[in-house]
């Protein structure tokens, strides 16, 4: 314990108050709890959506048809694929294959970027047609669009945070940090990314298809 040596290149970092297996499980439980808080963050929006949909069913149908479901479905596929690569990244981490972690996490981040670009085109088309809050056509579907922007906006924010988190994982993998007995950051980052996917799985039919 009293070695003056620097952090080991591989293997779990030394933590003074618990052993590395406990640290791994603690980090994972902590991340799941954090995901629980994220679910509740979105729960408010889902509740608001449910109640306003009940009030204004026609408006929600009409508003939903105004969204481009092809773009929505493309984004769904992009996120599902990114979730797949994130899961494979954890698998690579479990096997200590840092090169594969770099590649797979890189693909995941790229998918996140594609998602955001598509989202940007959707938003800007809405803006040009005057469907932003405060613009002329907004009042047509105000409750639907208000929640659409809040939900997708918050989701996009999570995509950005997730990309940041995965970039941190990627840098660690580049330094060859992960091994079969230490891959906690990959798993934590991937869990967060899967949540982004999970939320979108609900948002897509809710906003683009059923309305």
């Amino acid at each position, binding site marked *: 314990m009293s070695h003056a040596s620097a952090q080991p290149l591989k293997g779990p970092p030394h933590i003074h108050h618990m052993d590395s297996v406990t640290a791994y499980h*603690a980090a994972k*439980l902590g991340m799941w*709890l954090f995901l629980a808080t994220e679910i*509740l963050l979105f729960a408010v929006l889902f509740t608001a959506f449910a109640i306003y949909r009940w009030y204004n069913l026609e408006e929600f149908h009409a508003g939903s048809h105004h969204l481009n479901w092809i773009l929505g479905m493309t984004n769904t596929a992009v996120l599902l694929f990114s979730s797949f690569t994130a899961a494979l990244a954890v698998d690579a981490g479990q096997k200590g294959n840092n090169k594969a972690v770099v590649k797979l996490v890189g693909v995941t981040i790229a998918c996140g970027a594609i998602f955001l670009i598509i989202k940007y085109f959707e938003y800007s088309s809405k803006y040009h047609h005057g469907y932003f809050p405060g613009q002329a056509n907004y009042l047509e579907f105000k409750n639907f669009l208000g929640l659409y922007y809040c939900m997708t906006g918050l989701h996009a924010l999570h995509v950005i945070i997730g990309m940041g988190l995965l970039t941190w994982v990627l840098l660690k993998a580049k330094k060859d940090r992960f091994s079969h007995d230490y891959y906690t950051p990959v798993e934590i980052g991937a869990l967060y990314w899967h949540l982004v996917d999970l939320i979108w799985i609900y948002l897509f039919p809710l906003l683009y298809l059923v309305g």
Partner: protein
Amino acid sequence: MNAHSDTAHHEGKNYLNHERGLWSWLTTTDHKRIGLLYLYSILTFFLAGGVFALLMRTELARAGADIIQNPEVYNVYFTLHGVLMIFMFIVPGIPATMGNFLLPLMIGAKDVAFPRLNLFSWYIYVIGAVMAGFALIHPPDTGWTFYAPYSIKSGSSVVLMTAAAFVLGFSSILTGLNFIVTIHKLRAPGMTWFRLPVFVWGTYATAVIQTLATPVVGMTLVLLLMERVMGVGVFNPDLGGDPVLFEHLFWFYSHPVVYIMVLPAFGVIGEIIPVFSRKPLFGYKAVVFASVAIAGVSFIVWAHHMFVAGISDTAAKVFSILTFGVAIPTAVKVFNWVSTMYKGSITFATPMLYAIAFVFLFMIAGTTGIYLATLATDVFYHDTYFVVAHFHYTIQGGAVIGLIAALHFWFPKMSGKMYNETLAKIAFVLVVVGFNLTFLPQFVLGMEGMPRRYYDYPPEFQTLHTISTIGAFINGIGYTWALLNLAFAALFGKVKAPANPFNSLSLEWQTSSPPPHENFHTVPEVTDYPYAYGRPLSYENH
């Protein structure tokens, strides 16, 4: 002293002098130091919130405009009193201070699960407090509840204040998350779930609420911000929004939040009463399950705040019935505390006095709550001083008294010194007498029809208001006295505290006072639950 204590060796080094200098405090990851950082912060805001309370009481001492000429200023005062006391003082109150300090000690761990995250949540708390400070440039006047639609239209800096509340909430979430993981993963060998002290159970139930209810209010406040900044139309009736939805979502968090305040206080009382009664805690498992039950029930009663706010009759009936359910686990706890004292060998030390006061005051709080949960009477009592009095009996008589009791009980452990018992008892009398003098008249005022949040009133309410103001000042002097007594003992006290001055069986007393940096010199082994008392108390009055 206790046979298990390992204090004879390792004299001199403890968590307070382990490292020195301001920088070592600001960068510490030691849960005990972070607990103290929180303690200093929350007590600062307690003082500030108290000043606003006394300003209001001074204005209300006589009918007519005295020190406040403009009613809008009064709105600002009660808003700031509420925001300071709720978001910055009492929500982090017991969990972030005593919880941080005690939790790892009580379960025999070296630290919380994520020490750096713990420090980070203190910094988030400070950032939130600074944001709230900037909001004072144009102070909000919406009340601490930020009700829509007024909060959408008010010209004051609601945006900054709600953003501050969001940030403070985030700090609360991270603290709760940290505690849950700590209790799950870092218990000492032999520390099974039913050997945990009830304070740990109370903190666990609190942490669950902190983690899972706070995001709801966070998102609700973000929606309010979006409404103000962009006009998305979620709560604004002009754009088809439903302002009552804001109240629903707000109270979905803000009702459980009163249990964030009071559940750890229940835990504190559950620790103090057995120690000073020298008897096992009566019905340990019942107390534990009651904590969990209160946390669970707290999520399904929120709309009792909204009986006259425009919700439907059906909803009002449903929530009224559910609300009565809270009485059951709460009463279980009260019966357990009283039964613990029954035929005990009671020592009336200061922490015990506060604990007994807690039981009395909380019973008054609980029984007056029944009137507010009853639909017919609530229509009459709603928005009167009756509600103000009921609320302060639960929160001040419950949570604040609980915090003060905890500070006295664990003071020897935290500081390594003993406080002056006589001065502490005088402060206790001032606090309890002042408190009741302040708020008992307010029950009567409310029944006579005095509405809350008014800076002026008709002359017939004069006498009771004057009594209430006098009580508020006595109460304020009492708290100041109690805290100064502790501060003085910590700084200049000569009497060193032994490891276990009150002869408690709980784990935190088995290490030296103050504890070493690593909490325990050897990993403790737990063989029994911490209330196996049966010996007479060898406590001496210091």
